[in-house]
């Protein structure tokens, strides 16, 4: 088995079969314990499912309300294995009112499975979810045309729906890695090749998953946002996580936004000695030869970030209340935490239609995407999302809650 796990989100319109697919994947790969199968048989029977037929959706939908209403309300993380590696599966809800849960789930993924009901085709949340995938920079996407059994396994239906979804995704800069016809309920093309669709010669869902790649650490701009500073035996140790690139002992670095120079003296981890370098993802402590650091500063290996109090971005508004231009928010990017307002709303639109609702607007409505300019109370250190994702994305907070996510242009 490969070393690293892969985080995978399953998205799509409500009732297109996300939870059922996951249940089926678990079942077919032997990742459901007999006791779990028994429990699900019982809860399925309690709902009136005859003949011990399994409601695969119950594997993921564990809340009583979810089973009663037959919907997913909140994301659930679960785990399953193939011969290649371990997967963390994030099941995202398909209802519009749970969009913030869907976005939370998608933000943690490296790849996505987009489920589309082959009979019903592209629907409102399909479009909205495609848009979220595009904005969040998820480029590994497999489209799964589900419920093929209901179309009589029709190749013609498959071709029509496939053309439509490929068009929508390519408009958002995503080329789907695969488009797979399947039936999650019956198991066609999930773990095993379907006998009912001999006209299809592409991979099964499992084969598609195993072809995805996990994120790699690149030799690029190093970013170390300071998380906190501890006094360890009289020594000032700045702790944090390397967000991008590789941090090395002895290296000349710059402390932003002040742009002062220093050298890395030591990399510290408890009970480990003589660490020479730390790659992206490593939670470490460092000591420097310069001034003591504070939370929110960013240590970089060369100064090619934006140091600015004005940020242009695309944001998605996730809460049920409107935003009115000028209302104070908090901008949070890496460990930076700065008061701000949205000063300009260049345009806003409903991602389900992609048509601009209004230009030069004064409000942003729930579940809308907007291109904005954010005015900050002091300078922050950011990158464009295309260059370094970790310092190119941020959230906006109101009364302690995240109300929007954003991508820096």
């Amino acid at each position, binding site marked *: 088995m490969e070393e690293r796990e892969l985080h995978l989100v399953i998205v799509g319109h409500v009732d297109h079969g996300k939870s059922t697919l996951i249940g089926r994947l678990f079942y077919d790969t032997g990742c459901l*314990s007999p006791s779990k199968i028994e429990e699900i048989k019982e809860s399925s029977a309690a709902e009136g499912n005859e003949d011990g037929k399994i409601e695969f959706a119950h594997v*993921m939908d*564990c809340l009583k309300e979810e089973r009663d209403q037959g919907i997913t309300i*909140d994301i*659930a*993380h679960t785990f399953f294995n193939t011969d290649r590696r371990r997967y963390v599966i994030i099941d995202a809800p398909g209802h519009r009112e749970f969009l913030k849960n869907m976005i939370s789930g998608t933000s943690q993924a490296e790849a996505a499975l987009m489920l589309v009901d082959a009979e019903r085709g592209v629907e409102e949340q399909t479009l909205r979810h495609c848009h979220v995938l595009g904005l969040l920079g998820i480029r590994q996407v497999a489209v799964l045309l589900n419920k093929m059994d209901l179309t009589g396994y029709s190749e013609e239906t498959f071709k029509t729906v496939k053309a439509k979804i490929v068009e929508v995704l390519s408009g958002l800069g995503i080329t789907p890695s695969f488009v797979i016809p399947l039936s999650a309920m019956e198991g066609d093309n999930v773990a095993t090749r379907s006998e009912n669709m001999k006209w299809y010669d592409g991979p099964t869902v499992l084969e598609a998953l195993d072809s995805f790649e996990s994120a790699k650490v690149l030799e690029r701009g190093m970013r170390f946002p300071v998380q*906190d500073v501890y006094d360890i035996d009289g020594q000032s140790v700045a702790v944090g996580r390397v967000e991008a690139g590789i941090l090395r002992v002895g290296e000349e670095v710059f402390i932003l936004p002040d742009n002062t120079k220093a050298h890395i003296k030591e990399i510290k981890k408890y009970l480990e000695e003589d660490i020479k370098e730390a790659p992206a*993802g490593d*939670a470490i402590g460092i000591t420097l030869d310069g001034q003591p650091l504070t939370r929110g500063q960013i240590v970089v290996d060369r100064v090619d970030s934006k140091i600015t109090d004005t940020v242009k971005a695309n944001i998605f508004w996730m809460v049920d209340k409107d935003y009115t231009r000028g209302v104070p928010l908090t901008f949070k990017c890496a460990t930076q935490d700065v008061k701000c307002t949205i000063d300009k709303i260049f345009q806003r639109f409903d991602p389900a239609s992609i048509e601009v609702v209004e230009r030069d607007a004064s409000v942003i409505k729930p579940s809308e995407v907007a291109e904005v300019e954010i005015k900050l109370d002091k300078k922050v250190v950011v990158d464009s999302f295309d260059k370094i994702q970790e310092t190119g994305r941020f959230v906006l907070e109101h009364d302690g*809650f995240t109300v929007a996510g954003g991508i820096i242009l």
Partner: protein
Amino acid sequence: MDQLTMLENKSIFIIREAYAKYKDIALLWSVGKDSTTLLWLCQKAFFGKIPFPVIHIDTGYKFPQMYEFRDHYAKEYGLNLIVGRNKEAIDGGMGPGKGSKLDCCNELKTNALKQTIAKYGFKALLLGIRRDEHGIRAKERVFSPRDENFRWNYEDQPAELWDQYKSESEGEDHVRVHPILHMTELDIWKYVKRENLPISELYFSKEGKRFRSIGCEPCCGPVPSTASNVDEIIDEIANATTSERAGRAQDKEDAYTMQKLRSLGYM
């Protein structure tokens, strides 16, 4: 970076984030394998000196071995240990033999925790729950707010993007922080092995049985097992066909007892 190091880094990041935001914070230590792993991760995050108290919620019904383990390692690690008990309920005779499991857990665990938090004024708690333990826990956020009644509003949880966790908000009594939410049971045992962590002897097989999950003695049943060391446990779990909490009585009372307990503030 290997899988275990990646999981460890994620946990340490979360622990440090919680401490950076909340100085009135404590770690909830049940003495089980998960919170003992969390305790070790805190040692690592703070270079060997945990700068906040460690709470043990004591129902009075824990295994004797758990009390011994607790006292031994509290001393060895130099912990600032707080033992929280719902004395009134214990004196009033509440116990596993009386009323439902839901009531007992609620009184002796949840309410004991409420009293402890109120007494010390904690604003944040670190808990060692994991997503793969139970379907309800799979829905948790890393930072999960609770109101003064400890209610978990699972129908409207905060958005959590890119490791940006919610800040303190109005009407919040405390926030539950879950640094090992992303680890599985198997990860925990592999990590225990790699770090050579001390773990309660109850987990290891004696006379063909061991505990896979520990809590109160009357409500924990052992599972048949010959696994008497960490390696054998890793082998056993990798091939397990039953769930981890199969021996826990409170899960079985009704399919949604965990959901009810947790919405009332249970861990």
